């Protein structure tokens, strides 16, 4: 059984087709990259999987369950986590509070309105451990808005991990990270738990070719080709459209 599967997903905005019969399958523990030129429909596909968008036709399966009709938060509760291309954090909260909130939500504690947060020590400890694992222990009690950009990218991943996903969607995790901070980020991505299936969109080809064990190339909403990294790297069609093209931003 695949961790994540999309079956013949179609989505159009008027005449603009953004997903054209997209079928993807991620076995458990997959490291699957989704690449393609700008406007290929990569983020749209992520949004169809998370439920931010509804497909016109087709379905999304999570661990064998059809989740096409579920709301986004219900999909998260079933083990679908994601990060965002543009930092989507809680600027005034600290990383410790942010991760604790995520864990409380996962453990169905977020409705507790009369018990002090400090009483939920296990959630707080787990949040702090998690931040430590991505190298944010020292920044745990600073307001998120005061964190360096690279640290905020790490917090993006930490928050997604806090909800204990079985499938993790990383939307350009390295976007905008300066060279000096990218090593820490690469290390965290390399160290993601093996049993989590990861689907990631990335423009940084170093990241794609060092972590992906399979790659899907998306062009104009449709799958152009799919395969292991060396096959994709040598595919003349891919080189023409994407890798060898003058522009891939």
């Amino acid at each position: 059984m695949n961790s994540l599967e999309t079956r013949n997903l179609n989505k159009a905005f008027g005449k603009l087709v953004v997903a054209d019969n997209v079928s993807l399958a991620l076995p458990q523990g997959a490291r699957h990259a989704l690449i393609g030129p700008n406007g290929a429909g990569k983020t749209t596909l992520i949004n169809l999987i998370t439920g931010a968008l509804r497909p016109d036709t087709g379905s999304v399966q999570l661990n064998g369950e059809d989740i096409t009709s579920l709301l986004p938060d219900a999909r998260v509760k079933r083990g679908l986590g994601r990060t965002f291309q543009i930092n989507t954090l809680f600027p005034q909260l600290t990383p410790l509070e942010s991760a604790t909130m995520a864990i409380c939500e996962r453990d169905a504690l977020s409705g507790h309105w009369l018990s002090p947060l400090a009483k939920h020590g296990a959630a707080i400890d787990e949040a702090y451990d998690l931040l430590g694992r991505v190298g944010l222990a020292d920044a745990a009690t600073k307001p998120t808005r005061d964190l360096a950009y690279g640290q905020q990218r790490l917090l993006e991943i930490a928050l997604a991990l806090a909800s204990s996903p079985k499938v993790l969607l990383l939307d350009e995790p390295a976007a905008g990270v300066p060279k000096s901070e990218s090593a820490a980020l690469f290390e965290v991505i390399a160290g993601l738990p093996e049993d989590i299936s990861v689907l990631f969109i990335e423009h940084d080809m170093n990241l794609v070719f060092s972590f992906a064990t399979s790659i899907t190339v998306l062009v104009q909403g449709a799958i152009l080709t799919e395969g292991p990294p060396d096959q994709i790297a040598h595919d003349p069609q891919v080189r023409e459209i994407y890798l060898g093209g003058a522009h891939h931003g």
Partner: protein
Amino acid sequence: MDPKSWIRAKARISPYEAIFWIAAAVIPFVFFENYLSLAASVAVTALFCISLDMILGYAGIISLGHAAFFGIGAYTAGILSARGWGEPISGLLLAAAVTAAVGYIVSFMIVRVQHLALLMITLGLSFLLAELAISFDQFTGGSDGLQGIDTWKLLGIWKFSLWGHTAYAYALATLFVLFLLARRIVHSPFGLTLEAIRENPVRTTALGAPNHAHLRKIFTIAAAFAGVAGALLAQISETVSPEALGFQRSAEIAVMLILGGTGRLYGAILGAIIFMIARDQISGFYLQYWYFWIGLILILVVLFLPRGILGGLERLARLGRRA
């Protein structure tokens, strides 16, 4: 670092808080006996302002019609008393129950919209209720206000006198109990989730949070708080007029909260104290200029103290410690 003690420290009761509440309980009785009625209405307003802080400051729900719940609470307690049951505490409880029920129903509409639409819906709600209060005059007394409220002795012992000793003690005690409850709520896992929703609802959804359910819950709780504040005013002043749920009251409470500082509970209390006392003092000789001054102060605070007067004081204290 122990992360648990850091979280615990954020919720710890500081000595300043103890001093504040002792002062609030002693100073008016000892030094300002002639102003006890004013002190009682400050306490009522502070409670109402805390209610707005819970939705605006913590959950990020903007409302220009929060007086709707204040007014419903006031009419509930007032009508109950005018119809023959003047026991104050049960009046508060009934007002809380009624406003919570109305708040819960309204919350389904509130959580669907944001920004301008939210302002318009809350504003529309308060207009609508103010008109209803005027038209159902056989219950509400119409635009003349509700007459015939008779508040019984508090706990069967203390009479509500003209001097306001009982009134202030009653209002302050109610404020204190509900403040403790509000404080507990904002420092709970639920309170943290509300702040996260205020900061970024897209992210809380991506973490599995049912934003709407959380927001409906705090809106209902805050409506009950506002209802109790309204009921207190009805019982203490023994009258209710349609102004209780009017736009002006909604706007003023928002001004007080922004002056004091949002998202910290004490900002709500401080804003209410400053606004009410300043109005009492200034309007004594310059009634017509009152809004001039409040307008000026509001602009200055928003421009130079974006986190309110209390936020500004906190920054000053931090700078002082560093120097």
